């Protein structure tokens, strides 16, 4: 049963940097040797990180977010034959996920088959709160969603009205989440790519 840590209720940090370092040392007192050494060697950089303001927020009901970019991670047990079917389907798609393009907020997503093909790990980085758009997915891309999710145990169907809860029940919030450009949404990236291209063309004309 996945653990759903209450990331929305993270205790507020009120420790000073020194207190945090102290806590680190206490934590690592019984760590493997490699960890203990690394802590001492890496203290300067670590201190910087501990001194910075929090970069993490919640992505809504569950999950973490940095800036605009959220993480979602679900473990979905396969139905009998589901792994084989999904594997075949993914191979046929050859990396083309039109529905993900259409959604417009997905940065990346991966399908990993774990525990001897008994479970699907689906992990994605996307913009905003997915909760907000699940009804829109049900309205616009129900077939695309049903096609891969049907391979998972207990999936009620995108049009059942119960998909949101089902996904939530299988979601595990990350303990930590890092994004290189947290305020760069997929939409903003598309816009910048156009701008970049226009600039190149302009410079070509001038030059």
């Amino acid at each position: 049963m996945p653990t759903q840590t209450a990331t929305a209720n993270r205790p507020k940090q009120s420790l000073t940097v020194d207190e945090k370092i102290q806590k680190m040392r206490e934590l690592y007192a019984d760590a493997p040797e490699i960890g203990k050494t690394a802590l001492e060697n890496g203290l300067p950089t670590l201190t910087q990180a501990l001194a910075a303001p929090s970069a993490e927020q919640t992505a809504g009901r569950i999950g973490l977010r940095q800036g605009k970019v959220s993480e979602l991670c679900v473990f979905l047990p396969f139905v009998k034959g589901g792994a084989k079917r999904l594997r075949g389907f993914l191979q046929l798609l050859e990396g083309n996920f039109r529905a993900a393009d259409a959604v417009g907020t997905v940065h990346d997503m991966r399908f990993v088959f774990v525990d001897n093909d008994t479970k699907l790990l689906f992990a994605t980085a996307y913009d905003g709160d997915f909760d907000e758009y699940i009804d829109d997915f049900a309205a616009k891309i129900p077939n695309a969603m049903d096609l891969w999710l049907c391979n998972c145990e207990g999936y009620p169907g995108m049009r059942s009205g119960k998909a949101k809860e089902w996904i939530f029940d299988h979601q595990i919030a990350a303990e930590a989440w890092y994004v290189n450009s947290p305020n760069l949404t997929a939409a903003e990236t598309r816009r910048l790519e156009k701008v970049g291209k226009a600039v190149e063309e302009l410079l070509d004309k001038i030059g």
Partner: protein
Amino acid sequence: MATQTATPTKPKQDSAVEQKIQELRTLFADAPEMAKTGLEHALPSLMSQAAEAQASETESAGRIGIRQGTVSELTVIAPFAPGGAKRLRAVLRLLNGNFSGGRKVGTLHNMRFVFVDNDTRFLFATAYDGQWDPYIDDFATKIPDEMDVIFSAFEGWPGIHSPKVKDWIVKHQIPAEGWYVAHPDLSVAEAGRLKHIGKAVDEFLDKLNE
């Protein structure tokens, strides 16, 4: 990959697409009813997708893992060392998402740390630029201590400088079966460059209006 023409009616393509559709139908023959219906509804768009296959197929990221364009995935699941979950959770709480080490590496798009199976296993998943070997080497050279502080939570982690470390990672890495990247050619560096250009353009256009 053959150039796509405007008329997707070349016999060769048709039969390749036809074959794919057939394979899909076979695959879904014993699927739940909802899926079979879903497939039939989705077929028109799948057919056009297959006919216009983009040059965005996934390739190998090197020794292990897959890549689309310039962006690769790395997914590792392994048991925690004794006390590892508790330690790591506390460390991550203290860090609050501040991984300055990530910026140092320069090829890291995103990464997540997930505790599964009641804190007995640790899932680490990341998206990065380029190939697997140089990526691991990069971490070892640029942020070895940060790596070891965190990954010592794994049972049997040999240390980033150990000659065994790459084997250890391979042992616990599971390559994705499907990997999608919205902007496969946009490296971390390129994203930074685009942001600068965007800002400069906005300032320039604002000035034009004054």
